[in-house]
Each structure stands twice: as structure tokens, then as C-alpha cells.
């Protein structure tokens, strides 16, 4: 029996029946991390994961490197935080620790979660375990690749515009972006605070539900943490598909979407229809503005959030002579030397759209259109239970292919960002492989706090689809 191929749910069962020790499970994954080092999925590995508590045990977790673990590096894969050691545990880490989980290491990502390919990392790109010439998606590419390659049974990612769901789709694993406010952001390095959410990357929908039961919940130290709590998700049964209303937004099945992606997603629709689901065409008319709104709001919030990196209290400080004598130059050189190109680009966009004379035309306008985007979803959910879309217009693209064309890179998130803007939950589930053996994901979107419905529908779909292979 290869432990690395089992789901977390299966591992927990084996451990409970005392057929296997926690330390054996942990060692299996640790060994595989070293064996598949060429994927560059991890940027730090914690060998002490072998010494687990056998009384209170949960399978070990891979953690995206923008989530704080006490006394460990949290680099955001940026030069500016490369040597920073977190003095505290993030809320989600605290919760997992209490349940007996240890952490395998920190996973690679696009610098400050800005990117869709895990190429913008100071540690170099992560390779897609299905095809090492392709990107794993991003920004949680290291987490998705590690779960797909059996280097970790499950992982934490963060999703600001698709950063959990798009890499999950590219790597053939499950990724859940919870309702905004359901998981505390305390200890997640802020990118765009009105959009950021932590969520699970797993092999199965059931595993995502198990993780959510542990990490969801109110936190008084995150002022946007919701006071509304979710019911237990891991015990939610499969949804009865007969009569379930699924909406297909016409704006999401556009020209330009890869033919194989479209075929695989439509096959999923057919499968659900044959199982008794009622398929309805719907419209999300303002989704055509989603990329525009996102690339105003996210960089605006980022330019403000990232102003804290000034070389004074923590992080990188320039060692240039001039910076030693002049505070302004100290800020400027520390930031210029510490941030990579994509982060600089977004800080500049954000600063520009917030600057005098442009604020109303860009930022305020974007916030108003964001209201319209949310209203589109509210209206749609009066007619249907679930909205089904592709996760990304294409399967994993080649390493280096889009690096020089930021706009093209931004468009790979076209189907995921509306979800963050509206604050609703969505899950990415693998639905098939292309002729070149690259995974493709389907996205189920629900209304605010509809995680139980998303999970139960996901479970039912997974059963229809059958077992999905791992990358190795």
C-alpha cells in the first residue's frame, strides 16, 4: 500500500484502526519531498515532522509561504522577506496544531501571491508534476503541485483572484475558496484584504470538508472575520442530484476558451444532466468587467498593504551607502532592491489608480461595478442553486510562455476573479485530462455561506466522475 496515494480521510481511518503510526505517514511524505525535489514545490522543509504526537494525530500539512508558522521563515517568496522569521502562528495554523497536525514545510508561490504561474518566485519556478515543462498555476502553485505529486496529503493555499482554484485545476486536485470572512486572515500576509481568503488544496472533496471544519470559525483578531458560523462539513452527505438547478453563465463559455477545456466541461454538464440535474442558461452581464475591476481593486489594496515593507522594522534593508544617511533613500532602495518585477508593477498600478485625479475614475468606479458584479450573483442564485463554469480558459501553459506579457497572464484568472469580488465560495474539482494528459478543472460556485451545498454537490459529482489519478 502506497500511503502517498491515499486521501487524508483514508489516512485518518488507517491511523484510527491502528494499522499505521502517524510517524510512518509523516516519514513517507518527508521522503517523497526530498525524492521529488526537482519539482521545486517546497521552499523550506521541516524535518521535525517525523516526531509527531501519536495520541493526538492529524496527517501533516504543506503550507503556502505567505502563512505564518511561529519560529519559521515566512518569505512570501520575496527577497524583501527572505530572512524573516514569524514570531507567531496564523489562526489556521493554531487550529491545525490543536488537532495534532504538524507541518511538512512551506510551499512555493508567486511573490506576495501576485501571479498565476508560480514563476514570480525568488526561489525559481515550481514545475507541474503532470508535465515538467508546464507551470503548476498560481499563486498557490507549490501547494497544488505538492498535493498532486503525493508530497503532501493536503495543503493550505490562499485565494485572492483564483490562486487556490486555478493551480488546483492545472494540477488535477481539489481547491476550495471559502466565503469571504469564513476563515480568519490573521497570520496571512496581506495582499488585497477585501479579497484574500485561506482555503484547502486536497485530493478529494471530503478532505476539503475535513480541513474546513478545522480552519473555519470566528476570530476576534480579524476585523473582517464573520460571526456567522458554518455547520460541520465533513459529515455532509452527497447531494441528491435529481432536481438540483445548475446555471451555466453564457458569458463564461466564450470564444477563446480552449476547445478541449470546453469539451471536458460540457461533458461534466452532460453527466450532471443525465443524473437528474436541471441545467439552465443564466447571465452574469457584468462579469465582462471583472478583470478590469480586479486589476484596479487588488493592486490598490496591495500598494497600501505593501507600504509596510520599508526596511525599518523587519525584512530586507538596503546596504547602499546613501541609504545609511537618508531615511527616504533607505525606504526607496530597500523596496526597489527587495521587490520583484510583478510586485513593483502592481504597486505602480495601485498607486496610479489611487492617485489624485484618478481615484474617482478608477478606484471608486471599480467599487461601484463590484457592487453590480455581486448583484449579478445574487440575482442568479434566485434562479439556480449552483453555478458551473470552467476554472481557467486553458490547461497549464508552458513555463516562460506568459512572463513577458502580464495582461495575458492576468486573463488566465478570468473565470475565478468574479467569485472573489462577490465574496462567494467556489470549489475547483478535476473533471478530466486533455489529449496531452493535462488536468482540467470544473468550478462550482454557490451563494454566500453555501459551503454545505458546494461540498455535497462536489461529493456527488466526484462519485459520478470516478477516481481521478494522481500525477505520479
Amino acid at each position, binding site marked *: 500500500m502506497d500511503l502517498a496515494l491515499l486521501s487524508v480521510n483514508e489516512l485518518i481511518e488507517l491511523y484510527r484502526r491502528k494499522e499505521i503510526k502517524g510517524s510512518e505517514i509523516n516519514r513517507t511524505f518527508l521522503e517523497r519531498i526530498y525524492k521529488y525535489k526537482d519539482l521545486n514545490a517546497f521552499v523550506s522543509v521541516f524535518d521535525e515532522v517525523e516526531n509527531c504526537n501519536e495520541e493526538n494525530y492529524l496527517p501533516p500539512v504543506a503550507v503556502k509561504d505567505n502563512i505564518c508558522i511561529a519560529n519559521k521563515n515566512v518569505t512570501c517568496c520575496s527577497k524583501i522577506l527572505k530572512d524573516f522569521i514569524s*514570531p507567531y502562528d496564523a489562526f489556521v495554523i493554531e487550529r491545525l496544531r490543536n488537532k495534532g497536525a504538524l507541518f511538512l514545510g512551506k510551499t512555493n508561490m508567486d511573490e506576495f501571491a501576485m501571479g498565476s504561474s508560480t514563476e514570480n518566485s525568488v526561489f525559481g519556478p515550481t514545475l507541474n508534476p503532470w508535465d515538467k515543462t508546464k507551470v503548476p498555476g498560481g499563486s498557490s502553485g507549490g501547494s497544488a503541485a505538492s498535493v498532486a505529486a503525493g508530497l503532501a496529503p493536503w495543503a493550505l493555499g490562499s485565494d485572492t483572484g483564483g490562486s487556490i482554484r486555478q493551480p488546483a485545476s492545472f494540477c488535477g486536485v481539489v481547491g476550495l475558496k471559502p466565503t*469571504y470572512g469564513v476563515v480568519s486572515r490573521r497570520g496571512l500576509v496581506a495582499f488585497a484584504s477585501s479579497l484574500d481568503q485561506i482555503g484547502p488544496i486536497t485530493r478529494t472533496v471530503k478532505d476539503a470538508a475535513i480541513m474546513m471544519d478545522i480552519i473555519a470559525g470566528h476570530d476576534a483578531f480579524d476585523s*473582517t472575520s464573520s460571526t456567522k458560523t458554518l455547520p460541520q462539513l465533513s459529515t455532509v452527505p452527497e447531494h441528491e442530484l435529481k432536481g438540483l438547478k445548475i446555471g451555466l453563465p453564457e458569458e463564461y463559455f466564450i470564444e477563446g476558451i480552449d476547445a478541449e477545456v470546453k469539451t471536458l466541461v460540457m461533458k461534466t454538464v452532460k453527466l450532471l444532466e443525465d443524473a437528474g440535474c436541471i441545467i439552465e442558461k443564466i447571465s452574469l452581464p457584468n462579469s465582462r468587467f471583472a*478583470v478590469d475591476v480586479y486589476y484596479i481593486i487588488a493592486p490598490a489594496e496591495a500598494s497600501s498593504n505593501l507600504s509596510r515593507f520599508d526596511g525599518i522594522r523587519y*525584512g530586507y534593508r538596503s546596504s547602499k551607502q546613501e541609504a545609511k544617511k537618508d531615511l527616504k533613500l533607505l525606504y526607496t532602495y530597500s523596496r526597489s532592491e527587495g*521587490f520583484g518585477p510583478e510586485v513593483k508593477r502592481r504597486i505602480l498600478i495601485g498607486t*496610479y489608480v489611487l*492617485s489624485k485625479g484618478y481615484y474617482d*475614475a478608477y478606484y471608486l468606479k471599480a467599487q461601484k*461595478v463590484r457592487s453590480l458584479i455581486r448583484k449579478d450573483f445574487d440575482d442568479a442564485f434566485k434562479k439556480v442553486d449552483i453555478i458551473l463554469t470552467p476554472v481557467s480558459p486553458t490547461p497549464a501553459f508552458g513555463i516562460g510562455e506568459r512572463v513577458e506579457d502580464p495582461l495575458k497572464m492576468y486573463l488566465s484568472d478570468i473565470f475565478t476573479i468574479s467569485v472573489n469580488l462577490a465574496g462567494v465560495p467556489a470549489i475547483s474539482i478535476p473533471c478530466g485530462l486533455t489529449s496531452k494528459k493535462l488536468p482540467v478543472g470544473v468550478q462550482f460556485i454557490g451563494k454566500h455561506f453555501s459551503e454545505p451545498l458546494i461540498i455535497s454537490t462536489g461529493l456527488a459529482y466526484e462519485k459520478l466522475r470516478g477516481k481521478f489519478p494522481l500525477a505520479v
Partner: protein
Amino acid sequence: MAITREDVIYTARLARIALSEEEIEKFTVQLDRIIEFIDKLKEADVKGVEPMTEALGEKNRVRKDIQLKSFDRETILRTAPDRDDNFFKVPPVIEDK
């Protein structure tokens, strides 16, 4: 051209980022394309629409003003790039006359 070279230099100064000549050229082209793209937003009709500032419609919450356990000084200062005893060390901001 939506974005000029001067816009990029000015914006970078606001953001406290110094750009090389090569970066200025590259960012001018790239930012121009991005801003031109997001200009599509002008077509959206937002008459009477309120701006959305957060996702759930929850009101701002404030915590009670009570003393809680915090980090000790050493824990925080340990992360400083430069320090002098119990202080963060920075270049002089007030000139000697």
C-alpha cells in the same frame, strides 16, 4: 497613450520605488496596455450604484479597549534589520545644526 514615461516616474516616486532606465521603459509599455485595458470600465453604467467596500455587508466591529497579552519587546526587535539596544535603528531624520 494612456500612460507616459513621466507618469511612471512620478508614480514610482509616490510609491518609494526607484526604477532603472530599463524598468521605466518596460513598465511604461506594460502599464499603458494594462490601463488601456481597464479603461473599458468607462462603459459600465453605475448611475445610483453604491460602492462596495466589503463582501458581506457586515458593519465595522471594534474590540473592547482592554489590555491583552502581547509580544515582548525582544520578540519584535529580533526581526529588525538594525537595532540599537531597545530601539529600531534608522538614519538621522533631524539634522544637527
